[in-house]
């Protein structure tokens, strides 16, 4: 089915992929996620093939979303397939023109159908045709962002571990900086606040790109989260566990004073 739907309507991973459905679940449960739409595997293929009406429909559906927009893949197969994409493809768009939208979606289609992706599939015994969904979502210009685990991944202790830095969460996820390190126990008491070395921040540009900027020297070692923000993060952790279960790996961002959930997955391994 060639479909493009608001995230809250994405519920079938076989059609929209796991990223889209993960965000859809969050939206349906009242967790704040940035606005976005999900494209089914079939419409992604149609856009990549150059079908004009498919492209039109996608452009129409993303136009209302606040810019800039992040266009990302949403893998339909097991998460192993996600790993096979040599480089999680991310395109940023400021003005979603026909050319830009079809180009971004086509790039994602090709990353799922690249030499390495296809041979990886053969090797792991996935003998079906690759299918990939797409998520187009507003990229928040976050002030502070990062990752939170609802348990300590080093020793399994029942506490929240938070790593945070200035700007977009990519700095923490991709390990571009040494982030601030916080730990909160289940009751909400802050156990640790260790400042990192946050020399760089990633920010979205008006042109529809991201850029790495130098952080002003006085902010490099200054804690980027205050106690109020830590309390909000703690509440988010509890809510995610209620909705999804224990041991969550959460990507979050503060933008314009509000806390958003960007991604919520299961923690895959604790300790060694």
């Amino acid at each position, binding site marked *: 089915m060639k479909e493009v739907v608001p995230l809250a309507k994405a519920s079938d991973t076989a059609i929209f992929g796991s990223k889209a459905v993960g965000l859809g679940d969050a939206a349906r449960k009242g967790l704040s996620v940035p606005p976005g739409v999900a494209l089914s595997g079939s419409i992604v293929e149609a856009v990549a093939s150059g079908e004009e009406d498919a492209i039109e429909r996608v452009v129409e559906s993303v136009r209302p979303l606040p810019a800039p927009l992040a266009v990302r893949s949403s893998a339909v197969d097991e998460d192993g397939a996600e790993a096979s994409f040599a*480089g999680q493809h991310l395109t940023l768009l400021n003005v979603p023109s026909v050319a830009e939208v079809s180009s971004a979606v086509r790039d994602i289609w090709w990353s799922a159908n690249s030499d390495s992706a296809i041979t990886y599939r053969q090797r792991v015994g996935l003998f079906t045709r690759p299918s990939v969904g797409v998520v187009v979502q507003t990229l928040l210009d976050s002030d502070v962002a990062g990752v939170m685990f609802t348990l300590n991944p080093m020793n399994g202790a029942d506490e929240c571990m938070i790593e945070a830095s200035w700007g977009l969460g990519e700095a923490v996820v991709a*390990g571009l900086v*040494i982030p601030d390190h916080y730990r909160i126990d289940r009751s909400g008491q802050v156990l640790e606040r260790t400042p990192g070395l946050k020399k760089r921040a990633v920010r979205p540009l008006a042109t529809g790109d991201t850029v790495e900027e130098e952080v002003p020297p006085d902010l490099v070692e200054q804690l980027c989260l205050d106690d109020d923000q830590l309390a909000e993060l703690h509440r988010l952790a509890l809510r995610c566990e209620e909705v999804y279960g224990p041991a969550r790996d959460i990507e979050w961002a503060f933008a314009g004073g509000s806390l958003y959930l960007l991604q919520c997955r299961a923690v895959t391994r604790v300790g060694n």
Partner: protein
Amino acid sequence: MAGSDTAAEVHFDSPGPGTWELDPVHFPRPVTRYWTEIHPEAAGRGTREFAQYYGMLFGGLEMAYVNGFCYHTLAPVAEEEIPQRFQRAEEVFQGKLWREQLREWDDVCKPSSIATHRDIQAIDPDALSDQALVDYLIRCRDHHAAMLTQHMRFTAAAMLPTGDFLAHVGAWTGLSPAELLGLMRGAASVSAGGSDELERLITTIAQDSSARELLNSEDDPAQVLAALRALGGDAGSAVSGYLDLIGYRPLDGFDISEPSALELPDVLIRAIRVAVNGRDLGTSETEDRIADVRNQVPEQHRSEFDELLGEARLTYRLRDERGVYSDIWASGLMRRAVLSAGRRLESRGAVHAAAHLIDAGFEEMRSLLLGSGGPSADELEARLEYRETHRAKDAPAVIGEPAAPPPDPSGLPPAVARLMIATGIAMGSVFGSSEQQHEADLLRGLAASRGLYEGPARRVSGPSEFHRIVQGDVLVTEATTEAFNILLPLLGAIVTDNGGLLSHSAIVAREYGIPGVVGTRDATERIADGMRVRVDGDAGEVSVLA
């Protein structure tokens, strides 16, 4: 020098005349008393032998232990021996004397050592009476000492052709030793843990699906090993053959304090898994690198380049073989015997734990076993505590006379100069410069994923360089992304400049069960491509070894 000796204050007195330099590379922690008793004499003798064999302008490398840390000094050669040495030095390069030693190693020393190791290994110390165990300990110790001498005796054969290669090619191309050592890849399967037994293990397991299933299961590693051994058919006997070869080898280091492979079944299983499941892109990549360097050598020197490289690669395996098949195995056997003695002493209440006997000197072990005295259980435990809480980085880099600048080889006859330069470079690439040793060569970061791993560092900044990684490399990079995931089956460890415990690199290192140290700040600046590094994921430290 008088002074109060508080628990925190330890004095480092010079062991003798001359300049004594710390060796934190081979001995990053204090050694056992037993080791200090046998190592200096046995190893010193071996170095004197090679110095004479190759006509070198020093008497030998003398070792001494100060507060458990290893120091060495270059002993001078007697004046009257110098003419003889000059003469011999002329013969070294002309006659390629290292080839004689390589032959001796392959034909005589290595097989005979292996035979002796296996004879000693075949005896079960637990089944011996106290007196017979004492005799067995004597046998193990004497064998260990002989093997230490053998190790040092073959040092020059292992390092000279490499040093000669580095000296010449370095001068012709301006490339650093670390970069040039990369051309040795594939020449030494032992360094990468290879052997006939391992080859057989890989082939038989690949063909046996129940063996593969067992190997990849999540069950208790010790039980998995036992089950693999017990398998019928080729796979089972290949596993036994491999475990018999390496089981009593310390996984890291030389002292009897280091645990052997069989004592760390989860590390062993992981290593076997990597060997069986991994793929090696080694050879053609190295050929390309060799061609690349060769092109940088001026045309008139290229055939010499080929010859020098040939000799270096020929002998490169000796670097690790001379240890692995000599004292490293013997050390594991000695440890086994000492632990056996320790167990019976523990049951008699003479020691608090079997492993504490490791800290007894040899005569002390004998006395304790025969009930005729020896250190108290508390004393032995205190020695263990000392060893575990002290590091070479806290010991002075130099004791005794200040280090003199290296002698100028330009006044010497050409063959002698060539010899000394090659030796200097080879030793430098092993020991590094001692003044900057600790700080220059130890990096600290966040302990992101536990475990210990030693291997060659590979600086890779992004997907365009992925093809440079081969099996067993340590990835050194600014930061990782999902793109790096495909490298994981090949990697022994991950080291990054940036990142926290929740960053991508930390998460994948834990998932893959390989040691990871992140947030080091400047690993990519301080670790050059090809350098041998040790990654300690528990301590959050990375040491540069060579």
